[in-house]
């Protein structure tokens, strides 16, 4: 669509940015939990330890972002809460329940040595189901799975379970989670100079990259049938998607030639480009066809107050984030500590 920068566009861009940040951070977070479980029995190396070391200080922050997404959406687009509240009640309830179990067990596993493996097993496996559930919001906003008869919105479970889009998105969520996390952990292991962990995570990234790409192709192919309106829009935004494929190629090449930092950055860029194209194609609809960014928008004065609160909030927090980054991501002494 033709974009003029209105308050609605700024608001929806911010929300989409939060979704993006959460998706990346959560993918890495849940993925790290999974790898920590997956490699729990290896004696020789430190894959599990690397994953845990990354996970320990970061899960709380990541968790905050899901609240930011929910609160941001409700405050910027209150008009969408009624329909999304009704249709997402069950899938998101199960999602947050799993999240609760997962976070609790993650914390417990640091305190209870005797059952550490069981606790890691549960937190690692639940973590993989959460992205699969949360991503369902995307095919649901295609609109065909929502029954609006009688002025009451209901999720059509039959449609959801029968749709090929559902499975394409789930595959995309799970593979992306594993791909992104193996990539970041390979970089993290590289900086920590843990060569064995680096080797294994690099190998995982090499295997998972093409699978992730395939699943994203599946999302586009199924979209053609399940949301032709969006498929058409996506076509109009194809340059973003093509750029994203180029970024993937660059990232994958960087994994291959053992430049993990470049690879991570390139792949995150890949997701950012694809998300931009996808987001633009979704507009002006928040939920097709009933709710658009105009119809769902908040009060003008509230938007302006919120916008200022964002500027002030992030300005205050930035030094904190930098300090955090310095302590946990770049302190070589800390990273190398066995």
């Amino acid at each position, binding site marked *: 669509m033709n974009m003029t920068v209105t308050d609605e566009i700024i608001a929806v861009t911010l929300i989409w940015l939060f979704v993006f940040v959460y998706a990346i951070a959560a993918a890495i977070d849940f993925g790290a939990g999974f790898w920590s479980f997956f490699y729990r029995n290896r004696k020789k190396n430190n894959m599990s330890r690397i994953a845990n070391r990354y996970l320990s*200080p*970061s899960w*709380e922050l990541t*968790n*905050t972002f899901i*609240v930011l997404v*929910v*609160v*941001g959406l*409700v*405050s*910027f*687009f*209150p*008009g969408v*809460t*009624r329909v*999304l*509240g*009704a*249709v997402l*009640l*069950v899938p*998101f*309830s*199960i999602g*947050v*329940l799993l*999240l*609760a*179990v*997962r*976070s*609790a067990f993650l*914390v*417990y596993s640091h*305190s*209870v*040595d005797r059952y550490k493996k069981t606790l890691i097993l549960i937190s690692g496996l639940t973590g993989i189901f959460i992205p699969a559930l949360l991503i369902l919001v995307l095919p649901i906003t295609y609109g065909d799975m929502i029954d609006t008869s009688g002025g*009451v*919105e209901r999720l059509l479970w039959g449609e959801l379970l029968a749709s090929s889009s559902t499975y394409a998105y789930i595959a995309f969520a799970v593979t992306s989670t594993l791909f992104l996390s193996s990539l970041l952990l390979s970089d993290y292991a590289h900086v920590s100079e843990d060569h064995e962990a680096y080797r294994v995570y690099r190998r995982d990234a090499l295997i998972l990259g093409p699978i992730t790409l395939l699943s994203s192709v599946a999302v586009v192919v199924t979209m053609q049938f399940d949301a032709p309106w969006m498929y058409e829009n996506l076509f109009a935004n194809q340059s973003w998607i093509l750029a994203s494929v180029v970024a993937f190629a660059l990232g994958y090449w960087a994994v291959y030639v053992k430049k993990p930092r470049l690879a991570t950055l390139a792949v995150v860029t890949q997701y950012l480009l694809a998300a931009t194209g996808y987001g633009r194609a979704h507009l002006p609809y928040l939920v097709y066809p009933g709710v658009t960014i105009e119809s769902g928008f*908040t*009060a003008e*004065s*509230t938007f302006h*107050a*919120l916008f200022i*609160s*964002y500027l002030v*909030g992030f300005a*205050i*927090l930035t030094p*904190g*984030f930098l*300090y*955090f980054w310095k*302590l*946990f991501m770049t*302190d070589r002494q*800390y990273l190398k500590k066995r």
Partner: protein
Amino acid sequence: MDQVVIARSLFGTTMGFHIIFATLGVGIPLMILFAEVMKLQTKDPDYTTMAMRWTKGFAVLLGVGIPTGTIAAVQLSLLWPEFMEVVGKVIALPFQIEIFAFLLEALFMSIYVYAYDRLSPTMRIVSVALVAFGAVLSAVLITNVHAFEATPEGFRMVNGEVVDVRPWDAFFNRSFPVTATHVMVSAWMTGAFTIASIAAWKMLRMKKKDMRLYAFHRKAMMLGLVVGGVFSILTAFNGHDSAQHLYHDQPEKLAAAEWLFETETYAPLLIGGTLDRETLEVKNAIHIPWALSFLSGNRFDTEVRGLNTWPRDEWPPLFIHTLFNGMVLIGGLLTAMSVVGFGWKRILKRDVFPSWMMWGFVTAGPLAMLAIEFGWIFSCTGRQPWIIYRIMRTADATTSATNLGMLFVLFTAIYVFLCVSVVAVLRYYFNRHPLEKELADL
């Protein structure tokens, strides 16, 4: 059961459970901060050990507190969509700023816990102070929305549409200062008494009196009693303001809390008693003559409106009288306990406490938490049938989605499970890392 009751039960259960962890999440960091400050003041290494052990316990509690808070945030939108639509348009600011407060807390919590050995003493204090600040700010901001529900301002409803929105007027609504202060000081009080309770329990259960350990726990207990005592007195003062706010802004809640049916001057304060629901007659209650009038307007001849002034379908549930009494009674008890404990140690200069007194202290933390639960249930059910006072009824804000019953069972089961497991984990950890060993390692 009807939809509204199930939705309220589900959300009430979530909040009732989350509030335990949220309150400790505000109260414990302040105690950790005090321990760090005491360390700097007295150079006594015991306070470092205290700070570290409390932090460990706090980190485990966060493992439940954070995800249940996330559940609460998501459930708000899922269960009360119509309400959240108004919230989104009018009172979105506190929710949004709360996220920043929460980010601040999470950032510095990670820094304090996982980089403890790499921080200078000053940075430790700064970090834990920011954790405590972020925690209390979150609580205050969430309370802001709660206050807005009682005294909605900053917008008008015209034909069911929200118009003329002034977000900062909504933010600084009339009951915000008094309500937020109440939540803040009572949470600090509860955190402090919880610490005192645990220390008292340890002192009681000590098999052979090891004076080294006894002294350690006594320091923790005294810190808890003093901090808790100060905040319980502040809570009492603030409670008086809260009652006056009710008198002005939610008079039917005050009338229901006091079982006052007829409008009266020289109205009495009622303690305890039973109510005949048919005749609305109160029996066996203790009457304190003129006290309710005085409490409401600082004059004995203040006119207090009785419930009969309002139509029956706008009455809050009448059981809130008991919750109100319970909350006030516990507040008084806690103040008394801390005065007794402080007097025994500092004025009578006794180092060993008699066990009857210790058993009293053991109950302080759980009692404080009970008062918190009473207070929240009183405040939220006392606002019924309104979700936004005199603007939106709870029944009109409830989701149309079915199968809430199943979710209620599922969520309750998870809460029970989390509750049991968090206690088990704390017990396991502290049994494996006894204080004796940690002190010996110093």
